[in-house]
């Protein structure tokens, strides 16, 4: 269904870009790409990481020899169902708006006794070096599968972050004078063969946000939303923000707010 919709979107975009002649050929390209993506969807290697994350969640670890089972991701201690779909949100205990990753690190520090540096040292995997955070986020994300993204950002602190995220989204910066919105602020844009979502609409933002965390075939690893957005900055030739930076959480809040109401389908798989 989504694939079909995508094909239509691509088809329309191409018609606009190249005129009628190219439609037949390019819709065949879109069909074959859809076939490729479908073939990957059954048997997503992210499922392997989800299993690992599940055992990491309940394993007693760290200086305090404690599990993460009492971690409060916003819906109460240990309550995971739907937690990912309603983050980022404001947390009273830290007086901050936190996303899934900053909250998870908070729990690793407060419950398990890791230092922030220890908890975030391997925040993403490299060949041969696995990342606990990737596994845990994959597991936590999957617990929101089938649930609606719900980040209305009604708390004043959340509203502030969403506003800041929107500002960053439109702000042109860096040596190329680039902004997120140049590629992701209109319908019908493509980079090479891939359609680019319009993240300013519920449909576009929803399509993008619902599948994260996602297995990146090109990297052979699950990417979290932090990694996705930090790498967007790098690709736009901006200075890369630190892991868990407020600027990234602000962007996430803005995008999740736009995507609110979309049903989660995670872990996803992408090229």
């Amino acid at each position, binding site marked *: 269904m989504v694939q079909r919709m995508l094909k239509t979107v691509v088809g329309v975009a191409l018609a606009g870009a190249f005129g009628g002649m190219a439609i037949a050929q390019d819709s065949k390209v879109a069909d074959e790409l859809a076939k490729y993506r479908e073939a990957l969807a059954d048997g997503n*290697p992210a499922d392997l990481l989800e*299993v690992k994350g599940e055992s990491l969640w309940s394993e007693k670890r760290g200086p305090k020899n404690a599990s993460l089972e009492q971690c409060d991701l916003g819906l109460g201690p240990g309550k995971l169902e739907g937690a990912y779909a309603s983050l980022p949100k404001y947390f009273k205990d830290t007086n901050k708006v936190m996303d899934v990753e900053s909250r998870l690190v908070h729990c690793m520090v407060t419950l398990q006794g890791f230092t922030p540096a220890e908890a975030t040292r391997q925040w993403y995997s490299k060949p041969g070096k696995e990342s606990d955070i990737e596994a845990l986020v994959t597991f936590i994300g999957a617990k929101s599968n089938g649930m609606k993204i719900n980040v209305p950002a009604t708390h004043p602190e959340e509203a502030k972050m969403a506003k800041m995220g929107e500002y960053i989204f439109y702000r042109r910066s860096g040596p190329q004078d680039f902004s997120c919105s140049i590629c992701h602020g209109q319908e019908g844009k493509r980079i090479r063969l891939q359609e680019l979502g319009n993240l300013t609409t519920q449909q576009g933002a929803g399509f993008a946000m619902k599948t994260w965390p996602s297995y990146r075939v090109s990297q052979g690893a699950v990417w979290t939303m932090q990694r996705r957005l930090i790498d967007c900055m790098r690709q736009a030739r901006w200075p890369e923000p630190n892991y868990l930076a407020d600027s990234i959480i602000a962007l996430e809040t803005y995008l999740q707010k736009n995507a609110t109401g979309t049903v989660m389908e995670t872990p996803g798989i992408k090229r």
Partner: protein
Amino acid sequence: MGNPMKIRAANKDGVTEVKVLVSHEMETGQRKDAAGAIVPAWFITELVAKHGDKTVLSCEFGPSVSKNPYLAFKFKGGAKGEKVTVSWKDNKGDSRTDEATIG
């Protein structure tokens, strides 16, 4: 040792379909690391699937099988509740066995 595999086995109309996802780097031996040194080849060479004691598939892989190998195949027979086991070994001598129940 490696991480657990994910094995799905489902019987329909007397035929059991097995889908296996294996956690493995499958290094080709052609990639260079950040320092420019060749990353040694490290890949699964053999994989065997069994239904009870009977081998239902044996595979040989080269390094061009994708990272986290995926495999799907079908065999006649197999009943709900019976076991399918999958074993692999790699070129470094590591190995692993996991099992799943036919659903």
